């Protein structure tokens, strides 16, 4: 799958570059005029919007939003496409290569990045100067890329990670769900207790460290110009050493290092691990999978800086109806519509006006309500931790090298140096 992706990216981008060249002269001149047309043009005619995996659960919601838009701007026609979850990046890249992107496209920042790099996306800040005032800084920041001038999407809904604990496993193994670990050292100490009490049957730690953990240990992941990786520092090596010792001691499941690792949430679901991380809606979705586990769960803020997950709406430069596209993107991401969306599921709005909504800051007393409040509080501190430059191939390299370091087959320093070197090579390529 990864190879498919790599091949696809290269071809798609080459194709996009080629078509870009073909239209080149007209396009670069257009850049500003599209933005000004968007700002001044009349909102009418046909406009298409593409969302990602919202059907069928949110069909009614989206339809309502679109109907509202049509009521507000009579004479406008909206064509809504919803793409299935799987293969979305492939779909978007092939649409871009063929010049067939819809007028408004739901793209997370890392999907929008390759398109912005090829100059395919509209700088929405130019079309809409109030953007930075109305949306939260973290969301807007996510669509600004080092080396690219502009903001390439309206932030839409946000999410972050929360720690989830299986309180039954904790109590059964001599731990107190009221004194949850708040740092890595705490976590390792409690994991030791759990290992001894359970005889190695259940684990507290259930994943190997990633870039997020390095970031939280104070490691700078990337240089400021976004041209090279810098995470091979002594602090990073020290963190990996800690994990290596914990692994040797048997505090982590053996298969966290191999390809058979199914992910910490799966281990958590099966009751093998007592800790996992997940979005604000994790308890609700788990209640469908394992109804007996959900009531035993309790949540706490993540250790360190919580990661920020952003979804946004981008507008391709090639849009034939820039005025309606910008108006539609604004409408979908408006405080009212976002608030309505967040009430349906545990995501959070990206507009500043929504921050005072008591719905997010008050729990209804259930454990999923508590988790929502924890997630909402975390969101204020959340940052985009993984740089958008890190693609699938780089993630694989980083994972492999970290696994080598933790298994003890390479020293932490060697592994990090090698990961940085290989990733830099890919970054230039």
């Amino acid at each position: 799958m990864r190879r498919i992706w790599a091949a696809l990216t290269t071809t798609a981008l080459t194709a996009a570059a080629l078509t870009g060249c073909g239209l080149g002269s007209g396009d670069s001149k257009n850049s500003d005029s599209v933005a000004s047309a968007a700002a001044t043009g009349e909102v009418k005619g046909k406009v298409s919007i593409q969302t990602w995996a919202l059907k069928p659960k949110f069909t009614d919601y989206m339809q309502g939003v679109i109907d509202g838009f049509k009521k507000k701007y009579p004479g406008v026609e909206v064509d809504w496409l919803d793409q299935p979850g799987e293969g979305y990046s492939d779909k978007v890249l092939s649409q871009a290569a063929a010049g067939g992107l819809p007028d408004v496209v739901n793209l997370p920042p890392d999907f929008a990045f390759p398109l912005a790099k090829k100059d395919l996306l509209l700088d929405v800040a130019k079309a809409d100067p109030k953007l930075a005032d109305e949306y939260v800084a973290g969301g807007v920041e996510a669509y600004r890329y080092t080396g690219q001038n502009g903001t390439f999407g309206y932030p839409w809904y946000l999410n972050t990670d929360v720690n989830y604990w299986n309180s039954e496993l904790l109590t059964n193994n001599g731990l107190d769900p009221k004194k949850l670990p708040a740092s890595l050292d705490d976590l390792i100490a409690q994991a030791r207790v759990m290992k001894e009490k359970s005889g190695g049957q259940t684990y507290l730690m259930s994943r190997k460290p990633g870039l997020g953990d390095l970031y939280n240990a104070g490691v700078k992941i990337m240089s400021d110009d976004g041209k090279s990786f810098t995470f091979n520092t002594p602090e990073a090596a020290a963190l990996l050493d800690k994990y290596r010792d914990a692994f040797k001691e048997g505090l982590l499941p053996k298969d966290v290092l191999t390809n058979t690792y199914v992910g910490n949430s799966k281990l958590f679901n099966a009751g093998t691990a007592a800790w996992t991380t997940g979005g604000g809606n994790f308890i609700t979705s788990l209640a469908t999978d394992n109804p007996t586990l959900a009531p035993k769960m309790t949540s706490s803020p993540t250790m360190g800086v919580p990661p920020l997950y952003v979804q946004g709406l981008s507008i391709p430069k090639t849009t034939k109806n820039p005025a309606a596209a910008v108006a539609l993107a604004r409408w979908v991401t408006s405080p009212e519509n976002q608030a309505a969306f967040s009430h349906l599921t545990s995501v959070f709005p990206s507009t500043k006006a929504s921050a005072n909504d008591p719905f997010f800051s008050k729990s209804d007393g259930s454990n999923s309500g508590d988790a929502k409040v924890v997630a909402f509080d975390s969101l204020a501190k959340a940052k985009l931790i993984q740089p958008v430059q890190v693609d699938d191939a780089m993630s694989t390299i980083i994972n492999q090298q970290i696994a080598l370091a933790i298994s003890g087959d390479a020293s932490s320093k060697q592994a990090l140096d090698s990961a940085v070197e290989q990733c830099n090579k890919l970054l230039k390529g």
Partner: protein
Amino acid sequence: MTSSRSETSQPSTTTKPARDSQASRGSRGFNTPSPAQTAARYLLLLLVLLLVVGPFLWQLSTSLKGPDEDVYTRTPSFLPEQLTFGNYGKVADTIPVWTYALNSLIVAAVCITGNVVGCTLAGYALARLRFRGAKLVLGLFLATLVLPGEVTIVSQYVLVRSLGLADSLAGVALPGAIAMLNVLLMRTAFAAVPLELDQAALVDGATVWQRLWHIGLPNVRGMLSVIVIFTFIGAWDDFLWPLIVLNDPQKYTLTVGLQYLNGTFSANPRLIAAGTMIAFLPIVVVFGVCQRFFFKGVEEGAVKG
């Protein structure tokens, strides 16, 4: 791999009882296994069967589990405690599963027709007819096999789009309607038919079409059924290409449409499993219908001495 390795290691472990029983009966032939050996063979077969069928059974049992049952547990339980077929009904409520299945069926039918007709003609031409550039054509066919499909998928999409077939089932089916590999398979199958048969027909004054119909085709039925099965599975299971070509959800094929069950914030493993089962059934049917032709072609119409 598992099965071949276990077969080779198997005789050594059971040598002793085998010799004993042979000595006591005496009448056993060289290749007749003793009861112990038979038991061991069946045991190994059963083991491999479990390995292969296990994940499938788990999906089946998940699709029958009620909403109050845990799906992921440390020791997977295969027997649903609250047996229900409601998940299948819910799949049909959530997505237009029959429309999707029909779309898949149309695509598969076009692909099978294209492959059976096209590959037969092309394969026969390459194996039996002499024309200028035959070697070159064969070389070109082989050359296209070298490129993995993923590399050409975007240019293929651009092509289909400029033909005006984007967002249509024809656009999905067309690139798969003649597979190069199948042309080569058919060429090999036709080449394996004894040349004397053809020559005899030629003496009797048969035209090329008659020779293809009466001599060639009856001898390659086995290969044709292989191609039908593989093409069907390929067209039915293809995900990436239909996803890229199609935009209108009403035109989605089943594999793409089933992805809607796995939406953001709303994935129910029971429904996904039920959808998988629905997608799987037609493959069983096609295989069941075709497999009796598998070994037929070879014996039929051989040269009589």
